[in-house]
């Protein structure tokens, strides 16, 4: 629902016919086109009236507001999404994963969670995956306990924080302790709205509003915006899977398809409050990743539950039109040495994953040479001329493998058996071995191959 340049120009001075060039552009029309594409700022035209200006600012703002939680290097930006489905265009801002700590938990439990938040990191396709926020909940009902835990945690973590309390005074008191860190406050409701407005200054907090149903959020966000508080997240209050799919979908559609400003904010989801079973909680969180949540709060994290969610998040937010590709290099698997077999494959990440994972499963130490092939799989890369004998030979020569092994035997994928002769001609000192046509045969193939060498 982005506004067009031709609609903007009508609102410019003298109906867009002033053309005084003070904005630095030759005509009002040119300025309007620049504004529409985000290439200029409204301030550049000194003649726009305040009313027109605020109307234009509204029309030019992204349909889902980008919201920053926290400050500094670890601040989390969410929102600013432009599509409902990832095949239309990439989802851009990955949802933040928050770990919940209640103020009635034992010291060990609290410390355990803080440690996990800091230490659980996973390497995946050259990226480091980890959780993002810490949520502190005043579950005890005792404001003093809440203040105590906030004070304890503040110096310990540098990630963005979320504060949760049903007691608005306790919530605001905790906020006062860390307003400089722009925490996320929850819940803001019809009951405490005015109190929150009078206590919280713009840019000192992100406010997560809670309603009962999508429609009930509308007057809350309108009032906050009026008060100059626009860093908002939405919680429509749905606490089961199918209602959540419904509400998340309706909010995203209202923002993108109807251009409905009052719902043009990122959303927050609470799998931690939807079930007490950890597996179900993880599964609910996994639904919220493609279904639009911008912050997902979990009761706890463990290696086995966090890794799949973070991998899913990464995958869901990749550009569906660009194949994932691996860096061209030699990947050691199972601690290979100079006598270990050398395998080659193309650099589509999926190809790499499957081959690497099967080699690993074979328990045979090996060198996996991944050749740049435009991010394609073996067969498509061959068809595109990027995995031919002529192009593999120079790669083998320059990648350094010749200095790493004491033999000259190269296993090529069975799918491109046809390049064998061509490759053998280009690499006369290498023996070219045609490997299995399907990666899942590797665990049987590799041990047998190594055994045959030992004779």
């Amino acid at each position, binding site marked *: 629902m982005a506004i067009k340049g031709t609609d903007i120009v009508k609102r410019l001075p003298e109906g867009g016919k002033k053309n005084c060039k003070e904005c630095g552009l030759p005509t009002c029309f040119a300025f309007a086109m620049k504004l529409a594409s985000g290439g200029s700022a409204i301030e550049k035209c000194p003649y726009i009236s305040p009313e027109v200006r605020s109307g234009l600012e509204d029309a030019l703002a992204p349909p889902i507001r980008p919201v920053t939680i926290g400050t500094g290097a670890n601040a989390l930006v969410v929102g600013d999404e432009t599509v409902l*489905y*990832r*095949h239309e265009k990439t989802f851009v801002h990955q949802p933040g994963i928050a770990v919940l700590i209640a103020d009635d938990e034992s010291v060990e439990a609290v410390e355990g969670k803080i440690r996990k938040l800091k230490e659980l990191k996973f390497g*995946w396709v050259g990226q480091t995956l980890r959780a993002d926020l810490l949520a502190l909940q005043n579950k005890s009902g005792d404001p003093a306990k809440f203040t105590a835990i906030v004070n304890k945690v503040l110096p310990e973590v540098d990630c963005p924080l979320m504060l949760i309390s049903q007691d608005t005074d306790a919530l605001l008191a905790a906020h006062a302790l860390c307003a400089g860190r722009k925490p996320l406050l929850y819940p803001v409701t019809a009951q405490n709205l005015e109190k929150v407005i009078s206590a919280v200054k713009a840019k000192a907090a992100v406010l997560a509003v809670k309603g009962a149903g*999508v*429609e009930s959020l*509308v007057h809350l966000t309108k009032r906050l915006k009026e008060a100059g508080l626009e860093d908002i997240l939405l919680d429509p209050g749905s606490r*089961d*899977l*199918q209602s959540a*799919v*419904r509400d998340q*979908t*309706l909010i995203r*559609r*209202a923002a993108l*398809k*109807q251009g*409905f*400003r*009052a*719902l043009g904010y990122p959303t927050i989801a609470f799998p931690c409050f939807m*079930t007490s079973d950890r*597996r*179900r909680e*993880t*599964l*609910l969180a*996994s*639904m919220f990743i*493609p*279904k639009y949540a911008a912050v997902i709060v979990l009761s706890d994290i*463990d*290696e*086995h*539950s966090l*890794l*799949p*969610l973070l*991998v*899913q998040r990464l*995958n*869901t937010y*990749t550009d*569906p039109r660009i194949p994932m590709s691996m860096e061209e290099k030699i990947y050691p698997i199972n601690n290979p040495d100079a006598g270990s077999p050398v395998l080659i494959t193309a650099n589509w990440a*999926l190809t790499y*994953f*499957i081959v690497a*994972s099967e080699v*690993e*499963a074979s328990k045979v130490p090996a060198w996996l040479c991944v050749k740049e092939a435009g991010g394609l799989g073996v067969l498509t890369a061959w068809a595109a001329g990027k995995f031919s004998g002529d192009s593999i030979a120079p790669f083998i020569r320059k990648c350094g493998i010749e200095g790493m092994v004491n033999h000259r035997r190269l296993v090529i994928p069975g799918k491109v058996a046809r390049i064998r002769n061509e490759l053998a001609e280009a690499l006369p000192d290498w023996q070219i071995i045609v490997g299995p046509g399907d990666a*899942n*045969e590797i665990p049987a193939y590799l041990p047998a191959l190594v055994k045959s060498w030992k004779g």
Partner: protein
Amino acid sequence: MDYKAPLETYTGKIKEVVIGRGPKAIKIGGESILPLHYFEGAAARRPVVALEIDDSGAAGWTEWAVEPYQDVVSDPLKWAGKCLELGADLVCLHLESTDPQGANRPAAEAAALVRRLVKEIDAPLIVYGCGDDKKDVEVLVAVAEACRGENLLLGPAVKENYTDIARAVAENGHCIIAQTPIDINLEKELNVKLLKQLPPERIVIDPLSSALGYGMEYSFTIMERTRQVGVVYGDMAMQMPIIADLGRECWKTNQARADREQGMLWESITAMNLLLAGADILVLRHPDNCRLLKEAIEGKL
């Protein structure tokens, strides 16, 4: 501006496919809503969950996935019964042992096994060949003939071998699984070709299900687009139900093999995603995940 819920209705409708016969038949498809959008319209039938068995005694299965079936994996009949006891809507048999690279079991033996199974078990049956284009023709044709009139869901039919399989399926009263390698154009092409041999009510789409971390998002997007093209844009060649045969893909990942709970989540998260993308049949290995996904489908999660 007042809020008006942006509800949408669509003209396209997924075909109803019936699998099995008599009182044990089940119907899939029939919806003209997007996946799980029950707030925008009812669905004739909600997605179903199948548990997988094979004829090779669960060879190569990760130990956590075999545990629930420990005492029955050597007997596909008992194994299928156990799956139903544990909550599966239907059973999916993989004829692993027919693989020429492996045991290379003859087609006639496989057909005899399927025939015994279909007579004995109390639910519809999905049968997958080993995935070898040539052998699958032999095996699936033999199975189709041996189980005439049983209305199995049989596959995979791929662009290299679909003609003979589709003919046997049509002549013997079964349904077919149209499989393509994560490519929406090839998917439509195969559907169009199959539609010359079979009515749409006898076709189920298998766009290939990759596991989480191994390309799941590609399967997700293909299924999501397939469903949109079928329901929102009314493309008749894309209005068949979708099968997501994902359990085997998930359990063979290193992540699932490394840790029981991680394996459980690897399978259930992949299933959740493909359910959200539009799968009408989820094929899983672990019965606990079958139960969880059924909760999600029935609105109890």
